[in-house]
């Protein structure tokens, strides 16, 4: 926890807020003192003037307390929220600059949670600490000291009360915490079954399993409810018990106090003050016990955040990056081997090919055969283990990724759009693209039709993740976005499979005819024979091995894997 807080928490604000808090504690410890003075010196002696004086002093101290606590809140909120801001910002930067290896180690939703919820947890704990938790021990010591000063012998009452409090609070936690954990699981199960009832409604009804589902839910509901009743019954004991202990303390103090007063070892006003201090002591204890609940939760969050910070980048930055050659587009893989971090097996073995400008390379193979892995080496998402990947004749390891990305335009498998407008998405790869350029790209991508149908056309809003467009539309917009960008190499990672055959064909035909594309290398990853058939070269990949490279006609003649793929997609007759 300290690791992630260090350097991000404004020390001056923290120091200031603690200082204010100390003032606040001292002032509130002083108040009961005045009360007892009023009783001892004012009321008991019937001195009205003294009472008024002391009263003024009380008001002054009260105002001081409030000022101090406002100061404390002011600084504590800034310190804690500022910490959150810096943590979020650092996390976001760190994650954005992650290479694929690091990103793969987490998943998207986990990284999102770490950046948002986990930071929120830390922020909340810090605010609690600065406002209450640090106060508790100070208050505890201060109040004990004051109580002891008021009446030393009477403090022995705490020897009974505090252990009793610890037993009650500890006991409740001991029994309740495991039940709470179990409850989380049971809640998850309840939600899971309900959600499955929604996602699987067609299957459930088609197979007439409604009753089965109702029973499944009933069991989970029973289980949850019984557990919840148990947990809350245990928790219900806490408040009455704690109240009883505190009330008991008051009674004890009154009884003992009466004797001390009778023996003239204590003044009446001190009795009242003592009670106040006693309550402050017990309250501080209760707050301290909160630490045991909050700290583990926060440190879990802190650990998850630290995990992100601790990830080191696997892609070496190049000290003196080479300049990429312009104009002569080419892409070459020279005996490339690749292995995922920590993997035993090579993910790609001996990949060799060279494509020149104007040529199209298609890559085909089953799921998990290494198609996406292969193209991920082009923009240096990963680095090859041996062999070289060359863009326009330059080894990518000699280039920095920013320069590479300028030359490589990619359409990933999963279409991702960003909140904004169609235009803002299209400008993603080229800030100064004209409307004509955008429309041209949309035409090639077969997206001009539906964009024209939108009321605001290029200024039509795009929601987060492009959720207001269908899967096929998103894919076409992502393709258009990549085409707006000027690059030497255009990579389409399985981008055409979401399109129907006809759109797929039109798109590829338009792509071939485009001037810009004629000067660059196109890489198409596909699953359908029809998508890859007209490429200049088709690379057949199976289990990370390049098992064929050639044109459709060549491969159809002599490549076993390619034939299998054809066979699986277009089967004549039946063999059932």
């Amino acid at each position, binding site marked *: 926890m300290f690791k992630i807080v260090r350097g991000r928490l404004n020390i001056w604000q923290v120091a200031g807020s603690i200082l204010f808090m100390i003032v606040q504690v001292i002032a509130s410890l002083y*108040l009961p003192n005045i009360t007892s003075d009023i009783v001892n010196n004012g009321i008991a002696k*019937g001195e009205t003037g003294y009472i008024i004086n002391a009263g003024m002093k*009380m008001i002054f101290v009260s105002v001081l307390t409030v000022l101090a606590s406002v100061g404390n809140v002011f600084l504590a909120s800034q310190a804690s929220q500022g910490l959150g801001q810096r943590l979020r910002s650092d996390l*976001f930067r760190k994650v954005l600059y992650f290479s694929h290896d690091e990103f793969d180690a987490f998943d998207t939703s986990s990284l999102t949670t770490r950046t948002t919820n986990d930071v929120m947890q830390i922020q909340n704990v810090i605010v609690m600490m600065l406002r209450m938790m640090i106060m508790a021990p100070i208050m505890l010591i201060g109040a004990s000291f004051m109580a002891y000063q008021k009446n030393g012998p009477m403090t022995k009452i705490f020897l009974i009360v505090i252990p009793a409090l610890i037993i009650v609070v500890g006991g409740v936690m001991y029994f309740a915490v495991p039940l709470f954990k179990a409850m989380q699981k049971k809640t998850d199960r309840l939600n899971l079954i309900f959600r499955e009832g929604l996602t699987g409604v067609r299957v459930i009804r088609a197979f007439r399993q409604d009753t089965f589902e*109702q029973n499944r839910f009933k069991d989970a509901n029973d289980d949850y409810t019984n557990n919840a009743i148990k947990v809350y019954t245990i928790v219900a004991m806490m408040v009455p018990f704690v109240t009883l202990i505190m009330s008991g303390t008051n009674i004890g103090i009154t009884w003992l106090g009466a004797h001390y007063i009778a023996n003239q070892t204590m003044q009446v006003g001190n009795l009242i003050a003592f009670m106040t201090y006693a309550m402050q002591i017990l309250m501080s204890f209760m707050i301290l016990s909160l630490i045991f609940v909050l700290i583990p939760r926060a440190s879990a969050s802190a650990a998850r955040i630290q995990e992100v910070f601790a990830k080191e980048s696997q892609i070496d930055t190049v000290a003196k990056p080479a300049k990429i050659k312009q104009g002569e587009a080419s892409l070459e893989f020279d005996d490339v081997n690749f292995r995922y971090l920590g993997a035993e097996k090579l993910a790609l073995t001996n990949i060799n090919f060279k494509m020149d400008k104007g040529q199209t390379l298609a890559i085909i193979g089953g799921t*998990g055969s290494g198609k996406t892995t292969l193209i991920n080496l082009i923009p240096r998402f990963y680095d090859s283990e041996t062999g070289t990947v060359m863009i326009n004749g330059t080894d990518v390891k000699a280039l920095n990724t920013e320069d590479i990305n300028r030359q490589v335009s990619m359409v*990933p498998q999963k279409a991702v759009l960003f909140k904004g407008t169609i235009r803002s998405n299209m400008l993603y790869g080229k800030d100064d693209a004209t409307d004509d350029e955008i429309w041209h790209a949309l035409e090639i991508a077969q997206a001009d039709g539906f964009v024209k149908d939108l009321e605001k056309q290029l200024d039509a809003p795009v929601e987060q993740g492009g959720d207001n467009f269908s899967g096929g539309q998103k894919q076409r917009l992502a393709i258009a976005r990549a085409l707006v960008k000027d690059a030497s190499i255009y990579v389409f990672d399985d981008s055409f499979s979401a399109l129907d055959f006809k759109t797929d064909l039109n798109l590829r035909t338009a792509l071939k005819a485009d001037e810009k594309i004629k000067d660059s290398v196109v890489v198409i990853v596909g699953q359908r024979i029809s998508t890859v058939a007209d490429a200049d070269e088709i690379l057949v990949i199976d289990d990370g091995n390049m098992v064929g490279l050639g044109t459709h006609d060549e491969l159809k003649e002599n490549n076993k894997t390619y034939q299998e793929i054809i066979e*699986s997609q277009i089967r004549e007759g039946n063999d059932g």
Partner: protein
Amino acid sequence: MAKDKETVSSKPVGPKGPHGNAGPKPEKAKHFWKTVRRLASYMSAYIWGIIIVLILAILASIFQVMTPKVLGQATTEIYKGFMTGVAQQKAGIQVDQFPIDFEAIKRIIFVVFLMYMASALFSFIQQFVMTRVSQRTVYKLRRDLKSKMRRLPISYYDQHSNGDIMSRAINDMDNIAGTLQQSITQVVTSTVTFVGVLWMMFSISWKLTLIALATIPLSLIVVGLVAPSSQKFFARQQKSLGLLNNQVEENYAGHVVVKSFNHEKDAIAKFDAENEILYKASWKAQMISGIIMPLMTLINNLGYVLIAMFGGIQVANGGIALGNIQAFLQYMNQFSQPITQLANLANTIQATVASAERIFEVIDEPEMNDDPVDIPDIQTDDKVILDHMDFGYEGKPLLMQDYNLNVKPGEMIAIVGPTGAGKTTVINLLERFYEVKGGSIKLDGRDIRNMTRDDVRSHYAMVLQDTWLFTGTIYDNLKYSNQDASHEEIIAAAKAAHVDSFVRQLPDGYDTVLNEEASNISQGQRQLITIARAFVADPEILILDEATSSVDTRTEVHIQHAMQRLLKNRTSFVVAHRLSTIRDADKIIVMNEGSIVETGNHDELMAKDGFYADLYNSQFAGNVAM
């Protein structure tokens, strides 16, 4: 008597902000009292429990209110003895021990102790009972919601997002459980305490009470001024947090794109701007909600000091007993609590009733219609007949008009069309997920509306692209389509669908529990399980969606084999993607933009040279050479 209650009362401020005054404004219910009555009817079974709880709550609060005054009597006794002692000392009498009436004190303490005990016991019993009432009530609500889900038409599911329904089933339920458990008793205790405290204060001294009451307007001003601005900042914080979350999600999900377009700096700049807004809103929200407590304490303290001063003077003049002042000061603290508590409760209860209303909204949705229609059975050899059928989705224009199709037993009907052409509509109608708008669908000559839905569906089995399996063992998932299937039948089905071989390689075999994300088996294997599941059902008619999802070549071959086997000797409707299936089909239903555009077999449709011919040619134009 401690006045600094801030230490106890400031709750941790979660991302959603604290409840009550300082938090965002709760949603309002549309029909408040109607919903309350309805919610109450759910609790009517526990009416005696609730009555007991309310009585106990009243008693507990009364005891709670009385104790300071009774305990104050002890202080008065002590003070009396002390004053007498002092007087005696002044009179020159040697006093070792002040004449304090310990017997009286013992009596008082005993009474107070009993009251404390009773109060603690009562409040425990209240919680004990209310836990049961609230959990059982929500149990019933949850049960009713779930059983409602089975009676809702599929169109409801299609029109409402899962997220929306889930939030009602989870968040709204939780809200109700929490409120029932806490708030009902709190309303009673707060009210009783407020009235009781006021009563006790008046009984001690009306003058002091007026002084105490004078502080109320001050607290109202604080609450009235500070709370709205705190709400404003919390709302701003919430909004900004939401936007920031979206940014984070979007950029992480699109990490590949952000990187490959060199957009890191741009994304960071946008993030920093929003992050700064969030920081400003959240520290202010934190700060303003944080100062409410100290300000209230200050007002309370002012009252306290005034009471101490005036009361002190009166005690000194002998007008009032010291114990009473002590008690009065305690009442001062208890007095402001119920006011703030009631204000908070008003918000909580509003939000809860709104939650209940959202749940009742689902429970009141119109259910599926089971009325038979006046269409007589006919004698026919056809398995399925679509007879002058009209269909369109609710509130939308008709998609199909006067459509006719006769399906003989054993025939295969292929449904083809581009993505988004509405191929699932046919499945929806056959399985009676949706009802026809006109005409009739007949199964074995009988209109399906004259059969129960279960009866209709017992003739069918489905294999969809969406490979839904429930969280349970593979074996139970296979058995899902027919709970009466024997072990042998299930294993035979698994073998026929190429499931047996990979399942045996799993450490737990058929007992492997499939999890929700299905991370333990591949997508292709899930597809195979859904095929095996259809085998177990052994249906007369099969509905199949053969879309090739992303699976490896070998699994793909397995899936095809399994589907072929499953289709054999059955009437079938296949959402077709493969040439072979389409060519083999006895009839092809060609769909585009939701409507059926052509029907016929391959040769007929090719001869027609219409939409189908166009679709067919484009599919293979790239590689005619094959």
